[in-house]
């Protein structure tokens, strides 16, 4: 009898002890959350943990510090992780690419400009609590803790990716873009105020329906006659200058989300960086033809017109491929020798694009081995009459009708093949000349292909141009405008008139 009581009591006691142990130590109702963070933040996060657990009874935050980013990846692979803190945007981008996280926030900066990011794992089973911790981190309380430990909270935090509803009040959304030089540039998302100080970039933006985002434009675009017809609003947009003569104060006053420019001169880019104006570099002027679609995609990404940009870029690629399919089979020796005549006829274009377009069109640019002055020099070279006579080009394409007239009236040119065979053509000019590095260059390539090999190509070119303007600029070209484009008659208006 006694023994039974003892046994039962013992059993009950054991159960009680077991239960107590379970309750005291295992706490099955407590939510357990794992956060990975760089060990340098240990003290801060221990403080935050206390704060969090005091306010959120029943949640147990487990802190796992890591020392190097490889360790972070291992920890992520090993087990469930709810919250990730990282010291570097590139880490977050990597996690984002690999599907660990959908979004991340920059919440603080530390010594030497280190930026700190927080993200909640996409697979987190404790989404609500993880978001609650993030909210705490972004709240005034959390910021006080950060300040206490010598970090500067980013207010509002900068959000990247699909930032959840709960956090939107704490964060502005941003995106990071890698520009042509590989610089990472952080720009607001969506971009609302864009400044472009390079005409070719301005045109690309217009062609991807981004005209309404422009708050400042280059000094050249508003002088293009056709452009002011296609996009009349350009007259009302402040002129921000050009890369070498940029109006920094005006740009500051325009409060742009991003400035698109080229890298020459680099001092201007540095200036923008100093002033903390996000600046994306797309060096349109010195791109190869096949790089243009990529540049267009990049611009599209910056101004959140990815779809339109893709459409434009693939249009360019298609046209290029269609031409190349035919022309790449033409051996060099059989290609027509093409000379591009500018100004007084003895200046020629030496940009990549002017060589590429001739090549794609099935010719070869006689001046392809000329290189211009290095650096930001003019994209032109001067040649002597004798050099031209030595080249003896089969086809001359001229920058404008005046150059053609000049060449045809000058006895020195009379014995050049192109003149003898009446193959001097004026390069068409739409928004800009068709051999400048902007999407219209591909129309230029088609035009030239037809001139060089009339037998091989027979597309309905006029329809094509109208379609291009309709599709990318929403503009219906009249027949008169079309014929002016093709005859190269569209001049550039004189600034100020």
């Amino acid at each position, binding site marked *: 009898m006694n023994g039974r009581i003892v046994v039962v009591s013992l059993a009950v006691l054991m159960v009680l002890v077991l239960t107590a142990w379970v309750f005291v130590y295992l706490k099955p109702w407590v939510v357990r959350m794992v956060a990975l963070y760089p060990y340098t933040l240990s003290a801060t996060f221990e403080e935050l943990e206390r704060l969090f657990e005091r306010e959120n009874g029943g949640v147990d935050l487990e802190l796992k510090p890591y020392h190097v980013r490889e360790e972070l990846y291992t920890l992520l692979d090993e087990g469930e992780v709810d919250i990730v803190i990282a010291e570097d945007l590139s880490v977050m981008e990597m996690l984002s690419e690999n599907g660990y996280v959908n979004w991340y926030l920059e919440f603080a900066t530390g010594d030497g400009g280190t930026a700190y990011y927080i993200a909640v794992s996409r697979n987190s089973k404790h989404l609500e609590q993880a978001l609650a911790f993030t909210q705490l981190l972004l709240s005034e309380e959390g910021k006080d803790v950060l300040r206490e430990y010598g970090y500067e909270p980013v207010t509002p935090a900068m959000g990247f990716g699909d930032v959840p509803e709960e956090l939107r009040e704490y964060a502005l959304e941003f995106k990071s873009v890698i520009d042509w030089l590989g610089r990472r540039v952080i720009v607001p998302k969506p971009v609302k105020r864009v400044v472009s100080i390079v*005409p070719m970039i301005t045109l690309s933006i217009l062609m991807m329906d981004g005209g309404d985002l422009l708050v400042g434009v280059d*000094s*050249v675009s508003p*002088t293009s006659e056709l452009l002011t017809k296609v996009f009349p609003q350009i007259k009302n947009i402040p002129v921000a200058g*050009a890369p*070498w*003569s940029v109006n920094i104060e005006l740009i500051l006053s325009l409060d742009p989300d991003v400035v698109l420019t080229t890298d020459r001169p680099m001092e201007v880019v540095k200036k923008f960086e100093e002033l903390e104006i996000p600046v994306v570099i797309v060096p349109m*002027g010195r791109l190869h033809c096949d790089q243009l679609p990529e540049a267009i995609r990049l611009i599209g990404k910056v101004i959140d017109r990815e779809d339109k940009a893709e459409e434009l870029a693939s249009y360019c690629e298609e046209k290029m491929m269609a031409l190349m399919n035919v022309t790449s089979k033409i051996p060099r020796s059989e290609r027509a020798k093409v000379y591009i005549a*500018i*100004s*007084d*006829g*003895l*200046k020629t274009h030496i940009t990549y694009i002017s060589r590429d377009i001739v090549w794609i069109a099935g010719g070869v640019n006689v001046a392809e*081995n*000329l290189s*211009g002055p290095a650096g930001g020099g*003019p*994209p*032109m*070279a*001067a*040649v*002597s*009459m*004798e*050099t031209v*006579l*030595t080249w*003896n080009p089969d086809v001359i394409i001229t*920058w*404008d009708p*005046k150059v053609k007239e*000049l060449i045809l009236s*000058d*006895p*020195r040119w*009379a*014995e050049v093949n192109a003149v003898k065979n009446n193959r001097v053509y004026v390069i068409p000019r739409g928004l*800009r*000349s068709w051999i*400048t590095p902007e999407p219209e260059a591909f129309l230029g390539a088609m035009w030239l292909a037809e001139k060089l090999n009339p037998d091989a190509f027979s597309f309905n070119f006029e329809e094509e141009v109208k379609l291009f303007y309709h599709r990318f600029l929403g503009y219906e070209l009249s027949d008169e405008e079309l014929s002016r484009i093709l005859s190269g008659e569209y001049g*550039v208006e*004189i*600034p*100020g008139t």
Partner: protein
Amino acid sequence: MVSRYQVLEDILEEVRGRKSLVATALILAPILSFLLSLLVGRYQISPQIVFSVLISKILPFHYDVPKQVEIVIIQVRLPRAIAAALVGAALALSGTSFQGLFRNPLVSSQILGVASGAGFGAALALLLSGDPVIVQVSAFGFGIVAVAISYALSRTYRETSLLTLVLAGIVVGALFSALISLIKYVADPYEKLPSITFWLMGSLSAVSFRELTWNFIPIVVPCIILVLARWRLNVLSLGEEEAKALGIDVERMRMLVISCCTLMTAAAVSIAGMVGWVGLVIPHIGRMLVGPDHKVLVPASIAIGAAYLLIVDSMVRIVSTFEMPLGVLTAIIGAPFFAYLLRKRTVSWR
């Protein structure tokens, strides 16, 4: 004291002593450099063919060459060589005249702003039209306008003093330089700006007989006038008072020299663009060779200027496929030489 330039000095002394030798050299130099400049170029033609074609043009016999070869010799090289000779002579002569007139060996043909004015005229025309004819006319016109403004500004006092004239020239030059910058600022950097830049650096690559016919008279006529009036430059270089005491109508004489120099320089600049240093350095070379007497110095400057530009332009043509700017090369050669003269100033002036 043995100067490190002693050797050169000795040679020059030697040369100065042999007047006829110097005279012969001065006559031959432009002729030889003219022939040289007809022989060199990118288009390969043997000297024999060049001369045969040239002679066949003068003497009535037929010489059969491909049409293109003939074009290269007659339409391309010949006008270019003539232009180089004319421009070099004009710039050197106006430099010499101005140095005499202003009694200052440091002035050049550009002192009254003619080059800046012409540069502005060309830049403006390149911006607005681009037609080479208009560019030339505009360069010529604005070159003259610039000097006219300088002269008018300095006339605000009772009479023109040289100092106010020089100051007015500097002011006008600066004004037009600023206007050039303004045009470069507004010019489309992908289309217009390079043409303007090229023009401003100077080149003879586009010269044809058409340009020459227009500019022949404004260069040659003032040239003849100055050669005839060259001895008066000696008297003018004594200064205003002494020249007056020697019966010279200083005001009118100055006007004549300035008009002639301006016409020549404006025409030269409108053909060749900005070609610096010729008008500054050549007079000094001339003085080293034949002394300061303008009676001899003026023809010597013409010969040396023509030869110098012919040789530099020949170099421009050979050096590379693309055309090196002429103005750049004349400066690269002229500036170090001038630096030497500055160090050794007793050679040519006190």
